[in-house]
């Protein structure tokens, strides 16, 4: 039981960690770019992103399922009911969040900072870097919120992962199963681990926020 617990926890961290990494690699640069430059359709993209915040995870799961199923356009990848499928679903769910929060954070830095950089002789790239540095805590927050959302998510991963023991079972889906089986004690332990992870994320985040407020 203990070794299964370890496995489930490790898989949870691996799946959500990878999903967050991929979502950040996409969302942080794109979100920054949207904030830094006037882009055609920028407003529409923003509205779309904010709408995606409330996107039902189950629906994301269903979409990924259909894409990855044998008859789906990506069926040849053979990803359905693997951790890979869970990563895809989580990336789909949290990329808009990471991108949207990055966009807000970078936009909030304000034109004065940009102007100040310009008046001191910065070129375009240096200006962007300066604005991003000013937004660093906001960007870290965006990534952490994305991770938090990913590990807490259950609807999408249960559909595309299938909650298979020793294969695709993560903390949230294990809680669902153990509760249904009446193993409340085990379910509570799983829940506690989930909470500890969430708390650690919060602690890392507040460390950066505190340090920035010096």
């Amino acid at each position: 039981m203990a070794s299964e617990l370890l496995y489930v926890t490790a898989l949870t961290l691996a799946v959500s960690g990878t999903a967050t990494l991929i979502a950040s690699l996409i969302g942080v640069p794109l979100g920054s770019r949207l904030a830094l430059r006037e882009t055609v359709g920028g407003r529409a993209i923003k509205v779309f992103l904010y709408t995606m915040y409330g996107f039902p995870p189950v629906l994301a799961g269903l979409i990924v399922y259909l894409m990855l199923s044998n008859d789906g356009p990506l069926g040849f990848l053979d990803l359905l009911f693997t951790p890979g499928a869970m990563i895809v679903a989580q990336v789909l769910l949290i990329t808009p969040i990471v991108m949207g929060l990055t966009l807000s954070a970078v936009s909030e830095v304000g034109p004065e900072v940009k102007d100040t950089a310009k008046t001191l002789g910065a070129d375009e790239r240096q200006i962007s870097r300066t604005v991003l540095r000013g937004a660093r805590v906001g960007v870290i927050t965006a990534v952490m919120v994305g991770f938090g959302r990913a590990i807490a998510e259950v609807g999408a991963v249960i559909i595309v992962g299938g909650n298979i023991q020793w294969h695709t079972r993560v903390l949230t889906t294990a809680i669902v199963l153990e509760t249904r089986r009446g193993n409340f004690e085990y379910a509570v332990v799983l829940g506690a681990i989930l909470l500890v992870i969430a708390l650690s994320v919060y602690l890392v985040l507040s460390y950066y926020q505190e340090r920035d407020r010096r």
Partner: protein
Amino acid sequence: MTAIDLSGVSKAYDGNPVLIGVDLAMEEDEILAIIGPSGVGKTTLLRLASGLERPDSGTVAILGTPLTYVNGRDLPLKRHMAFILQKPVAFKETVSENVAYGLKVRDIDDTEDLVAHALEAVGLAEMGDRMATRLSGGEMQRMAFARATVFEPSILLLDEFTANLDPQNVGVLERAVIAYQRERNATVVIVTHNLFQARRISTRTTLLLGGRLVETGPTERIFEEPEDERTRAFVSGEMVF
């Protein structure tokens, strides 16, 4: 050579004209004061002169070369100047890192001595390691001055650089401006509400009213024997807005 030459420069915001066909030559080796009532367009004039903003019509030339407003092309020209904004902001870094900024973007890596010297000139020698966002108003203005002068621009634009400061900070900064100008024969342009300040430190003064420069001349003459009735009313404080 003329440091910044504005010719026929006009600018409107949302259809409201702020500047109308302004001609102004900012010369080498002078301290030029731009005075005028609040909201008249003094900041706008500096933003145009610095290339931060593009005029609707007219041209702005820096050291004889007109600005193109093409991405990146004006940068070598702009690097001859520094502009301290009306409300200076600090980057979220230490005071030293803020002051080093203009050196770093010019690929000068050996910044320590230059930064120390610039901080000393405004009495902030001990403050280098402090977080810049935590500075008081007067310290902030002094840091902004050090940050703008550390790379020794030949043109320095200052927008209300002592607004809301106590007399001691005003004194420190005014002396620093005069010393900087003298040592480098620099072009310094100040925008100020404070007519006494314009008189104290500028060599030439121009009055902006209704989108146009009403009168420009040696500071002494503008204040003692203005030719235009509006100038006389403004410098004597009779003009109420």
